[in-house]
Structures are given as C-alpha cells and as structure tokens.
C-alpha cells in the first residue's frame, strides 16, 4: 500500500486516509472584475495535465483534515515530497535532481 507523509501529523499514513484535490498553486485573481472572460475561464477551468512531475493539492481527510501540497510523478505515481500550503516545492524538475529529494520525507515505504 502507498504511504503518504502528512506534514501536519508528521508521519507516514496509508493512502486511503487522503483525497487528491487537484492542481496546486493556483492563485485566485486579486481583482476578478478586472479579468477578461478568457483569464477567468483559465483560472476557473483549465488545469495542467503533465506527464511527469506535478504539484498537487491533497487533503488528509480521515486524519487532521488539513490540506497540503504534494509533488507527484504522474508516470510512476512516486510522491517525491509533501509540503504545507504556502511553502515552495523543493522538487521542481528544473535543475534539481529528483534522486536527491527521494531520500527526504516523501520517500516510498
């Protein structure tokens, strides 16, 4: 079974306690009234669907009921890191070696 590290509980928990909640790091436009229809539509409905690294929003639904972010490889389902809302991801796929991060808190068990 897949184990996911919850940054709030501070330990690895089984996947069935969690729910995925879509793509992470989508800021709401500060002035919605100033948006064009296209900008608002992009914010509202359009999401990335990458092959490889993806930053996602997850919720620890059965545990502490808090949202957090995870960096996941959509090909292998490997979760490379989890980090609280507001923090920046360590693994971005640009320059940083994923190998290095695997030894961190998001490691597979």
């Amino acid at each position, binding site marked *: 079974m897949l184990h996911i590290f919850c940054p*709030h509980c501070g*330990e690895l*928990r089984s996947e069935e*306690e969690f729910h995925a909640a879509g793509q992470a790091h989508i800021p709401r436009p500060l002035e919605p009234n100033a948006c064009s229809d296209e900008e608002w539509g992009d914010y509202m409905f359009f999401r990335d669907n990458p092959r490889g690294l993806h930053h996602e929003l997850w919720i620890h*639904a*059965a*545990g*502490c009921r808090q949202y957090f972010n995870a960096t996941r490889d959509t090909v292998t389902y490997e979760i490379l890191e989890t980090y609280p809302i507001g923090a920046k991801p360590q693994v971005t796929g640009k320059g940083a070696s994923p190998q290095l991060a695997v030894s961190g808190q998001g490691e597979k068990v």
Partner: protein
Amino acid sequence: MSAINVYQQRPGNDAHAESPLHHADLPSLVGKGRKNAGVTLREKAFLGHLTLRGDGRDPAFAGAVFKALGLELPVALTVVANDEMSLQWLGPDEWLLIVPGGQELSVEQKLREALGDLHIQIVNVSGGQTLLQLTGPNVREVLMKSTSYDVHPNNFPVGKAVGTVFAKSQLVIRRTGEDTWELLIRRSFSDYWWLWLQDASAEFGLSIEA
C-alpha cells in the same frame, strides 16, 4: 471578552436524554457475555465535548489554555488528561476538550475569559459524538482487524490519539492505558460501530460494562 452568545445548551437532569447507543440497551447486556472476555466495551455517554480552535504556535494561546484548564496544549497526535478532563490534538489549529457532563458551560466560560480577544473558536459538540471505551487483552487484535493504522505499541504508545480510517468509515483512536483504548465516534455512525465491534470481538468474547 467577545460578543459571542454563550448559553447553557444542556437540558437539566429532569429532561429525558438518549445516548447514541441508547437503542442497543447496553445496561441489559451487562454480565451476559463470556467469562474472562477478551474485550470489554463501555459507552462513556453524556460527556461534554468542546472543540477548541486557535493558533497553536501563539504562546499567548497556549498559555491561556493552560491557565484555564491546567493542561498543556498537546502536540501532534497526542492526548493529555487529568482526573477530570482530557485535551486532544485534532489538527494543527484544532483540539478536542472532553469534560464531565454538565461542566461544558462553566469550562467554556473559563476558557473564553482566559483567551480574551484572541482569534479563537469554541463549539459545544457534545450531542454529535460519543466515546466508546474498549479494555482487555484482545483489544489490539480487534483494532488490527479494523484499521490499516499500525497499533503496535512501538508505534502507538499510551497517550497517542490519531484520526484514521476504521472499518468502512472514520473515527479517532485514543490509547489511554496499556490495555485501554477509546474510540471517538460520530453519533450517526454509532449503530454501525456497535454492530462492527460485536462482530470483530466475537472470537475473543465481548462483555459490556455499564
């Protein structure tokens, strides 16, 4: 003190009250189980449950809670208790305080006075949930059948409390003693848990305490 309307939500002792497991009529089952049963179940009914929210990293918040209750704010996945009440970590900004039935109002007032103008929330959720206490040498086996969480003593020492999946739903498991565990369950699920626990503990023998 804020302008929140704090009032007595508990009806007097004359009022008819039914606990979440009232329909199971537990008192009539006392002493009917197998002798030397491996699991003993007791519903800790009609306790006062208060959820407390605030900024746990703020020393003023933790200090005020300690001043009002005499309990240190517990860190992640723990529950602290004294003779009367228990305070449990539910999330980074959420705690559950369980007090003897009837003391909800006075404790809430004391907390609100100590916390003053801090950004906090206290809600009385006594009617929505209840505690089941399981004791006995085989309780751990029953839990192992029911949840994917590791309940081995190495991972689950006394004083730990976790919210997790259990059977086909969710609840909070608290370990309050070597062989004593508590399940914090929602009222609407109480019948499901009652049926599940009877089935899961049948092989070890289940006895009921009033």
